[in-house]
């Protein structure tokens, strides 16, 4: 790998200043970045280690929100009592990802900012618009079984690989950022962007921006939520498709009715995919499998699968229906 300089700043301001170097990169747990450096995909000249400045605590805020420090390790996030009790889908999503060893190292911010695992992106001997803008996308006509069915562009069909971010998108978590122009906040799923003509940009972060924390909102229905991940092997595999869902059901005389819901999909797009069309279709409607299937259909109408991943559309539909049905059973 390319030789690099390693710096460990004392606080966030120092970190942002250190990251002003044009080829600097923040280093969290290193579970993705170091791999990419070894592959020659990432070639930073300076690594700014932020594991000691970005906050490694989980705390309840006065308004009832839960603040998660950006450097909190994935394993600590999944195991925290507040997360397990209030946001089980988030704890489930984190545990569904990677392996125990990786979760012990990986940070919350690093998880949000991990790069796609598209095989072409990871191979520097091949074209890839995300890695080398303008070089082309071999995945579209090549191997794309694991890639996007929603929101992709002619330039890129990559998926975002995170499980955690899918649950956070469903929750509407807010990402706090320290930048050269001071702090600001980006609500999920608004941190990530669709590829469009610029797949080299995964997020709306500006150069030097440092994620400092993620706030999880007060959302009582999330106490009965679920993350369900479909994967090829039982552990240590990225999602083929995943769903994060929370459901609030009124059990009236006319049958159960959806009062509110949250739904997001993973493994289908360049971003964690908040299923707003499905949520709209569900709210106020009957909490039945037929209604769930209609809502899933409303969301997936926008899907533009490629020949090798067309199965993801019925798979996502089945998964949405089954996960919501499971939440209804759990609520009665």
């Amino acid at each position: 790998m390319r030789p690099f300089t390693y710096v460990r700043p004392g606080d966030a301001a120092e970190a942002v200043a250190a990251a002003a170097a044009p080829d600097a990169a923040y280093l969290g747990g290193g579970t993705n970045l170091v791999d990419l450096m070894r592959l020659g995909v990432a070639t930073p000249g300076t690594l700014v280690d932020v594991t000691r400045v970005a906050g490694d605590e989980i705390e309840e805020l006065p308004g009832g929100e839960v603040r998660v420090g950006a450097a909190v390790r994935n394993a600590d996030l999944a195991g925290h009592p507040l997360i397990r009790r209030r946001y089980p889908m988030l704890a489930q999503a984190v545990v569904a990802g990677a392996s125990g060893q990786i979760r012990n190292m990986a940070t919350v911010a690093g998880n949000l900012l991990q790069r796609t695992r598209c095989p072409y992106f990871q191979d520097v001997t091949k074209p890839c618009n995300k890695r080398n803008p303008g070089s082309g996308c071999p995945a579209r006509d090549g191997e794309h079984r694991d890639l996007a069915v929603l929101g992709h562009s002619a330039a890129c069909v990559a998926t975002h690989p995170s499980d955690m971010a899918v649950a956070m998108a469903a929750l509407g978590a807010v990402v706090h950022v320290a930048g050269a122009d001071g702090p600001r906040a980006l609500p999920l799923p608004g941190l990530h962007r669709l590829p469009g003509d610029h797949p080299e940009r995964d997020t709306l972060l500006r150069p030097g921006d440092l994620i400092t924390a993620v706030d999880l909102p007060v959302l009582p229905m999330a106490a009965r939520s679920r993350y369900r991940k479909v994967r090829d092997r039982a552990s240590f595999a990225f999602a083929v498709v995943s769903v994060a869902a929370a459901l609030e059901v009124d059990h009236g005389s006319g049958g159960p009715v959806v009062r509110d819901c949250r739904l997001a999909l993973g493994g289908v797009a360049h971003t964690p995919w908040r299923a707003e069309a499905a949520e709209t279709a569900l709210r106020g409607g009957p909490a039945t499998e037929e209604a769930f299937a209609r809502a899933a259909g409303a969301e997936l109408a926008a899907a533009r699968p490629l020949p090798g991943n067309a199965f993801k559309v019925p798979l996502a539909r089945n998964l949405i229906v089954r996960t919501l049905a499971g939440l209804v059973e759990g609520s009665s």
Partner: protein
Amino acid sequence: MTTTAAPAVGSALPRVDGLDKVTGRARYAFEHTPRDALYAAPVQATIARGEVDRVDATEALRRPGVVAVVWHANAPRLAPADDAELAVLQSPRVAYRGQYVAVVLAETPHEAREAARLLHVEYTAEPHDVELRADHPKMYRPAQVNAGYATDEEHGDPDAALAAAPVVVDATYTTPAEHNNPMEPHATVAEWHSGGLVLHDSTQGASALRRTLAALFGMPPEQVRVIARHVGGGFGSKGRAHPHVVLAALAAKQVGRPVKLAVTRQQMFAVTGYRTPTVQRVRLGAEPDGRLAAIVHEAFEQSSTIAEFAEQTTVPTRMMYAAPHRRTCHRLVRLDVPTPSWMRAPGETPGMFALESAMDELAAACGVDPVELRVRNEPATDPATGLPFSSRNLVACLREGARRFGWAGRDPRPGVRREGRLLVGTGVAASTYPAYRAPSAASVTAGPDGDFVVRIAATDIGTGARTALTQIAADALGTAPGRVRLEIGDSDLPRATVAGGSMGTASWGTAVVRACHALVAELDRHAGRVPAGGLTAEADTGEEIRGQEKLARHAFGAQFAEVAVDADTGETRVRRLLGVFAAGRIINPVTARSQFLGGMTMGLSMALLEESVMDREFGDYLNHDLAQYHLAAHADVPDVQACWVAEDDPHLNPMGSKGIGEIGIVGTAAAIANAVHHATGVRVRDLPIRLERLLEHLP
């Protein structure tokens, strides 16, 4: 001489090198660092076919620590190679993407890798063809297939028998390319001194590798020494020399310093062999009661343009069942792909997936229980050769497996067992693997202290060979295992066959027993007194093995699987896997069990996960790391059991053992695919059984 009360063979002697391994004292190839060693970073072709025009090393050579760049224009010349894959850096031709075209040598591995990344190689690319199709116009009939078997074989009139058969199964099965992926990647440390070459190499066969390297460098074999004291798995991929070994030796010769070369996991997907993908058509013709009249099994496979490797996929079909009319054949196409090679049970593994899936389809078509169907087709003598079997206990394995698994009373109807949203089913398949032996030599020395040293160039690739040979020697010498020390893994020791073909223990054990018996006789002549300098005896089994009685020698087994398939997602998980084996006398029940379980786990992995995906546009295997090439993780293997039936076969070797390293994988994928059919009613004929192959067909 001391006499022990209980024989060591058959006892659960703990691995004699276990402590060394868990404490890190056991040194693997790359852990040897000769003084002044350089580190090699190979550079791989980025075209699938064509020529290297120029290598511009200017920038690479400017990097700190970089000593040399070697490529075809400045590489030392080798003698012509039998295996063109080993003519490393001898010509500008590129035969597959990922082939070595240059190597950078530097003082540290990091410097070497960075310089390799910056090396500028110019090519003239030619159009490539990397896609295996059964109807490929360049399909041809190879002269023979792997292990020297006949390419085609025909008995009776299979076409007429198929036409006349009341029940016919005609199905095409495919298996993908698969890569061996042992835990320890291939590595070589090469050092030249006084005209001789010393290699620390992660190899399955030190003696064979020595011969290969000596021929390439035009030296007598005695001037090459290959050391492989510990090897972290191979599954066949370390059974023969691959280009990295030659590259390391070539580079060391060029710069006059020792060279260390560690093959990366990514490189292993191009340069260290793999299992060919196969397309197999199986036709079975049977009576309504399931008795076979005809079997036709045709396999279509690939090799590279520079080397012919023809997997013997349909060979097990020749001896498995008693069908009077049979045809088995192999066709091969040479593509612009990496060269395939041995991977655990080459031939049996893909071939028995097809045959045993077809047998399950026949059982369903006839309404006969799948265990019973196989029993009904049990041959009295080997259908392939007409010879008697030395022992054949497939039926015992099937019966014992059925009993242990709880097969009795199984409802044969597919797709009817639900547990919530899960569809549950069970399946069975048969296994077989030949019990080969190859000539080997051994020596044993008695010391005046009453201890013995056994010397043989065998290799323990993690199987427990060192332990098993200790037990075998102890019994042959009439002493305790603690008094026997094994020296293996060095080509300077008496010549031994490769740890492959499941024949290591049988071949080496024979030589060890003969040497031990010779020593005992010698000791008797010395009235039991060992001279001060010790006493040594040797044996070579060449004559014994060439003269052995002609019999059909094979191990057999039966695998049973229970699977659950998620009706919403098509995810298949194996709940239970049981293997029952008839493999002669078991030398060590602990290491043997590990071999069976390891093989079955690899079979599970093959059934559900493993697939090397060919990138048609660029011509390489795309998913070239363990994040993308999925192997079974622990969570995929919740309950796997292996056991064996007693088998007393006096026609094998002095131990009465059959090889056990490969049979565990053989029937497993078919047993799982058959269980998936029983669970869902969907017959998946294309491995691996990915969820999308089930999803649209689920109830």
